[in-house]
């Protein structure tokens, strides 16, 4: 079992597939966060720290 695991480290097909999976996952996340309906939600989220108490100083 352990030996099998080690064998895979020299298997270029498997590492290529691994790379592909990671890359697609990353691309998926990027597409996912850029969906239209997220816009209002992110707008609200990014305001959270600014809503929590008096402002640091006056806006200029």
């Amino acid at each position: 079992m352990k030996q099998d695991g080690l064998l895979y480290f020299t298997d270029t097909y498997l590492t290529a597939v691994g790379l592909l999976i990671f890359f697609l996952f990353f691309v998926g996340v990027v597409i996912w966060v850029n969906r239209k309906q997220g816009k209002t939600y992110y707008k609200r989220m990014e305001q959270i720290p600014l809503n929590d108490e008096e402002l640091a100083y006056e806006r200029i």
Partner: protein
Amino acid sequence: MNTSNSVIEKIFYDDDIVKKFTLATMIWAAAAFIFGLLAALQLAYWPMNANLEWITFGRLRPLHTNAAIFAFAGNAIFAGIYHSSQRLLKTRMFSDLLSKMHFWGWQLIILSAAITLPLGYSQAKEYAELEWPIDIAIAVVWVIFAINFFGTIRKRREKHMYVAIWFYIATIITVAVLHIVNSIEIPVGFMRSYPVYAGIQDALVQWWYGHNAVAFFLTTPFLGLMYYYVPKAANRPVYSYRLSIVHFWSLVFIYIWAGPHHLLYTSLPEWAQTLGMVFSIMLWAPSWGGMINGLLTLKGSWHLLRTEPLIKFFVAALTFYGMATFEGPLLSIKSVSALGHYTDWIIGHVHSGALGWNGFLTFGMIYYLVPKLWNTQLYSKKLLENHFWIGLTGVLLYYISMVTAGITQGLMWRAVNKDGTLMYPDFIETVVRIVPLYWVRALGGLLFIVGFALMCYNIYKTIKLAPKEQKAVAQEVVRSGYDEVSKESHRNLEGMGLTFSVLAFLAIAVGSVIEIYPTLSLHKYITPANIVDPYTPLELAGRSIYIKEGCYVCHSQQIRPIVSEVLRYGKASTIEESMYDHPFQWGSKRTGPDLSRLGKKYPNLWHLSHMMDPRAVTPKSIMPNYPWLAEKDTDFLVLRKDLSVMKTLGVPYGDEIVANADIHAQKQAKEIAADLEKNGGPKGLEKKEIVALIAYLQSLGQKGKAQ
């Protein structure tokens, strides 16, 4: 903001704990910086070691690193987390008692480190030197912190967790995993233990831990603080919330794999090295995601640099973060590592991160926090401005001098003449060449401290002039986010602290398991013909002294398969040569030469002279004297316990040698002492530590069957 569920509640934030952690940060910062300056001066001018065992470089350096990471950065993280989490989650901390236990527990741990490290109680694993009782205390206090933090998340009034909170969660979970796995050790006494891992296992686990201390103690928590304090200071939202999601997940997933880049060209199996290198290069992207997000938050607000100089600290911190996270992947490329590894380039790199990123971000945060916490104005913006420029000059001097020193020395080590001989065969030549740069580094460190002193004065005056009668102000908060019907899965994710934590854990577990698991079956990598003999009892005693004195801080025991290195030190190190080494002692810096094949190179008397006064045998050496080794007695009796623990860990000692370990050791000590005496050395050294150390040094590289 959604306030349809708008029942206004009045709550009090616990700012007392934030004040405590802030002041502790300042106090321990002073300690960490002064230890660092002393260490820098010792390297430039060896008499600064003062012949005192407690402050000799080998013991001072771990004290400095632990103080900088766990005392200074640690307290800064806690101050920022306790302050920002309450506000982001709209609730007081879960338990005041747990907060207090966390604070005092952590300070006690730091205090015990400050006492035990100078006394030589060390596991000789970088940033994990603290011995087993303190390791247990760290785990307990960390769990207290975790309960307090997750309890706070549980009782929050803001359903959605802002990005800073995710970074805190990842920090708390991962640090716990790293600390526990790397600290599995078997005690052999009140303040001594052997790690269960040996050789390549120990190296891999140690650097999986060590590198991820950088990742999850010096990066993720500080990114969390950045995501809160930079928008607060600039009074504008983070540049891109989307980018923060992408770079958070990328960062926690990729960082955990990068550890083996500390072990390139060592005897660590090739696949693990390649894995570490590839992931380190990939890491550049998510790291820069954080930098870009931080810097661009100031887009349209750059004028604040004129009116609010504390923002300068944040801008500089983010810039240093960007530089350090570009340089890290660069240094992880094998051919670059071949030049940079073991040199001061790495020291420069780590300090651009520690001083520039962690230091400046913390200073910016403290300048922002203190006036708020004490309900006053900062005493002097001019002093702050001066702190910034003096500190920045210090960091730049430090960084430039060390990178120059590192590359110079790296090139000198590998320089080969036309006839294939080394151009600089004497190691000391390469040291003498860079000593002037050690002075520049010390000056840089001094300037950094001068800036810090200005800050201490500024903060002292700020607090002193603050209104004396401080009344806590009740905050009016409204529950929010609980009346929405979530359509987005990531929104759900943020709404569920536990699920989010489990996912973050999975992200770090994947890399950890795939990297570490295969090396647990060490025998798979061992060639039976190359198996070495274990150390004799006296050599093992000497090894404990080597560990205690922190020799690994300046000497490596790992020859890389690089032409110049093999010419200088002998054939490249093998897996088998460190297979019984608990802990491994490969080292990561060569202030002095590699010692893997030192055995039998010099007579015993040479070693004695060298340890008493290195300059007697190597003129211009910068190594400290170790006179106490000729005065202190070796503890022979403890060897029975030592050997039996080693046997438990799989080192092939017979029952007889374990039972009579002390007798065997004394016999060998007598032989060495007699040899010293015969060659004109002092009499009666057989009981002294120096003899045990000589036995160990003479055994290096001599344990193979083929020798």
